[in-house]
């Protein structure tokens, strides 16, 4: 008998406004009932957007959807739930001080039998805990139903979240990068549970960018790139390496033009040793034993896919996160990185220039004019004895706007600018400052068009040639390969690769490290 098709999505397109990013461009998806179906692709390939469309969180601009053979138009999360589609988000939506059972059966709690108590909605607590226990047993989960979830481990919290969807009779479960916050052992355990859920006839959609996991658990896998569906493959008849090259675009390494002159390596500017962070800052994995140094005139590219430790590394290097251990040497000083004050001084004195990856939150005051945003970082230059040098500030802003091709006026409110222009403004601000000893650039070209990207890349080469050290944190492999003298890869918060960017390294090879199919 032919298996039923649980989900069929045709020609799904979705453009985000006002940024104009085309996240889905005629994407296709077909999922068999009772299977585990993986959806893979690089960052920004459109996986999450497609899943949000399915869960009713985003309305597509065009396209058709069939659920269990019925054509439908999913208009809201409530509608998706009514169709039996539930999504387990990357960042759990939990009530920390409520018990596991209360979280699972929120809104569906059994009430006391006596009429008055029932009318008042008084919960039958022992019945609730019993219900949670038997649901957990049914799927082979082991949880303490009365424990407050805030005290539970991340993996148990995830189980609670999955049970919550199962308790709501969801037939189609979407899991968005469920293993990104789990250790390997926890991942193993989760996969056993997922197999059990599949066994009970439910369908699982697994968004991930870890190929080993796909090979281990999925029945089929759909590869997405640039908002399009590249193809759907049966896991049994494909190999991990094959899949990796399809994901990375199947470009053989020889064809990649690495147009970079090898800079002469100068003295060491910053050295980090034994850097660790606690797990779960910003819901991430935490860093363990990171060590690197970066030299004058050198670009060290640090690459990772999302939730593999790049955010934590950025926050440590920005002085926003106090690490749990590690030592740092900078400008002839050696110090414990936990003394963030020492480190922040270098940022303050302009010896280190840092470009945040989250421009809207960390790099702009949206309700202030462009000029104010531009001068905010180098106030020493634009204020003399406490008074603003407005002519100078205006002229410098104007020049930067011109040099970096930003569509803006100095007096314009920053909130009126497009995302790309706010980004260019943040970059212009950094490169207009006096040159520091070290640049820390996080996702410098994320969301920029090709021309602006090239412009930024040539700026980076300029400062490199002028003798600055550059730490480039990026999830874009091409950017890392184009600019870096050395490349470092993080996977699950660990340093899995650190090497010279010579002919040996190519896109496919880095991809294997990024996706976890090859390790140090």
């Amino acid at each position, binding site marked *: 008998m032919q298996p039923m098709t649980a989900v069929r999505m045709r020609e799904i397109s979705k453009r985000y406004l006002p940024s104009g990013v085309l996240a889905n461009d005629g994407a296709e998806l077909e999922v068999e009932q009772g299977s585990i179906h993986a959806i893979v692709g690089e960052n920004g390939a459109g996986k999450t957007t497609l899943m949000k469309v399915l869960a009713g969180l985003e309305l597509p601009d065009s396209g058709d959807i069939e659920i269990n053979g019925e054509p439908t138009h999913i208009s809201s999360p409530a509608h998706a739930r009514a169709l039996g589609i539930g999504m387990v988000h990357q960042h759990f*939506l939990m*009530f920390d001080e409520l018990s596991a059972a209360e979280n699972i059966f929120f809104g569906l709690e059994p009430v006391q039998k006596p009429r008055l108590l029932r009318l008042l909605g008084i919960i039958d607590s022992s019945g609730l805990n019993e219900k949670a226990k038997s649901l957990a047993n049914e799927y082979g989960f082991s949880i303490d139903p009365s424990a407050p979830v805030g005290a539970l481990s991340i993996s148990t919290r995830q189980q609670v979240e999955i049970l919550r969807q199962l308790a709501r009779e969801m037939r189609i479960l979407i899991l968005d990068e469920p293993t990104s916050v789990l250790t390997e052992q926890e991942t193993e355990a989760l996969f056993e549970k997922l197999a059990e859920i599949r066994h009970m006839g439910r369908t699982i959609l697994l968004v991930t960018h870890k190929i080993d996991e796909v090979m281990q658990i999925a029945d089929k896998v759909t590869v997405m790139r640039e908002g399009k569906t590249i193809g759907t493959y049966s896991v049994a008849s494909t190999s991990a390496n094959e899949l990796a090259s399809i994901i990375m675009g199947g470009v053989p390494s020889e064809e990649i033009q690495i147009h970079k002159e090898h800079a002469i390596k100068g003295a060491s500017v910053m050295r980090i040793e034994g850097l660790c962070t606690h797990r779960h800052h910003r819901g991430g994995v935490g860093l363990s034993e990171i060590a690197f140094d970066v030299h004058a005139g050198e670009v060290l590219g640090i690459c990772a896919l999302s939730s593999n430790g790049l955010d934590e590394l950025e926050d440590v290097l920005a002085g926003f996160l106090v690490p749990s251990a590690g030592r740092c040497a900078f400008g002839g000083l050696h110090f414990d990185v936990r003394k963030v004050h020492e480190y922040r001084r270098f940022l303050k004195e302009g010896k280190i220039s840092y470009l945040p990856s989250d421009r809207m939150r960390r790099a702009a005051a949206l309700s202030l004019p462009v000029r104010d945003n531009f001068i905010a970082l180098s106030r020493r230059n634009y204020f003399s004895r406490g008074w603003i040098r407005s002519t100078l500030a205006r002229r410098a802003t104007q020049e930067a706007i011109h040099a970096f091709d930003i569509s803006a006026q100095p007096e314009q409110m920053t909130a009126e600018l497009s995302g790309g222009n706010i980004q260019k403004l943040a970059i212009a601000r950094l490169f207009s400052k006096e040159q520091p000893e070290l640049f820390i650039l996080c996702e410098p070209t994320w969301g920029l068009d090709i021309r602006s990207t090239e412009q930024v890349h040539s700026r980076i080469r300029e400062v490199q040639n002028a003798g600055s050290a550059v730490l480039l944190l990026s999830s874009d492999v091409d950017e890392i390969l184009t600019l870096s003298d050395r490349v470092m890869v993080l996977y699950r918060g660990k340093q899995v690769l650190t090497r010279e960017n010579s002919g040996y390294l190519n896109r496919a090879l880095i991809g294997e490290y990024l996706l976890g199919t090859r390790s140090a």
Partner: protein
Amino acid sequence: MSGTAAVLADILKYTIVAATPLLFASIGGLFSELAGMLNIALEGLMGIGAFFGMAAAGLTGNVFIGMLAAIGSAVAGSLLMGTVTIKFKANLFITGLAINLLAGGITAVLSQWWYHTKAVVAFTLPPPVPAFPAALSQIPFVGPVLFSHSVLTVSAWLWAIVAAFIIKNSRHGIRIQATGMNAQAVSSLGYSPDRARMAALVWSGVGSGLGGFALGVSVSAFVPNIVSGRGWIALVAIYLGRKKPLWIAASCLLFALSESLSNYIQGFSSIPPLLVLALPYAVTLVSLIASGNKR
């Protein structure tokens, strides 16, 4: 009974009396706090409850009707606040401030209109109904301290117990708690955080109304500025009690003890009464500082 014991019994008895309005209001405020809203309007809502409660009780001679009027008027105030904050998307603190201003204005204007004075309006109420048989209050020391109280005072404790039970054990209470912990999760599961917030404000209206009414009953009058900061003290009790009803009640007793002591000292010592009046605020401030922490 020796003189010292009698004084001590007196102080403790008045502590329980003084805790009544605080307990009503802070347990009411706990609901909005749990729903994620710092309700700075408790002060004003108590004032509204005190005025309308006393007015209705004075008019009908029926304390129960007065109580209903106190609840009704304070709930109306909290609904106004909730509507402006939730429906019109206004800033919670500014609407809270506005409610406090409104309460002062309305009570003064209506007092002038109905009773032709902005000063103290005294009411003759039926004597308070004792909650315990007279025999119990005859027990030395314990009797006057614990068993000499009115039904209203005892009902503050019942209110706290019932509220604690509802918060912990009902769907409604869980909904309110969940809204404060993670409103996005509540809406992702298909429930309305705004409805829970509105309900929580209604609860704090009920509590503040009762608290204000208890204040009025304790002096059998409506006095301008009768609340005089107790709404804020109730707010601090929520913090100090770490949002746990039992500890909130203990905090209320602590603040009430300082009020009771300050009353006693005023009568029997050479310390100037106006300085002593600051004692409850000082105790509250110190405990607020102690309960704050580095997040």
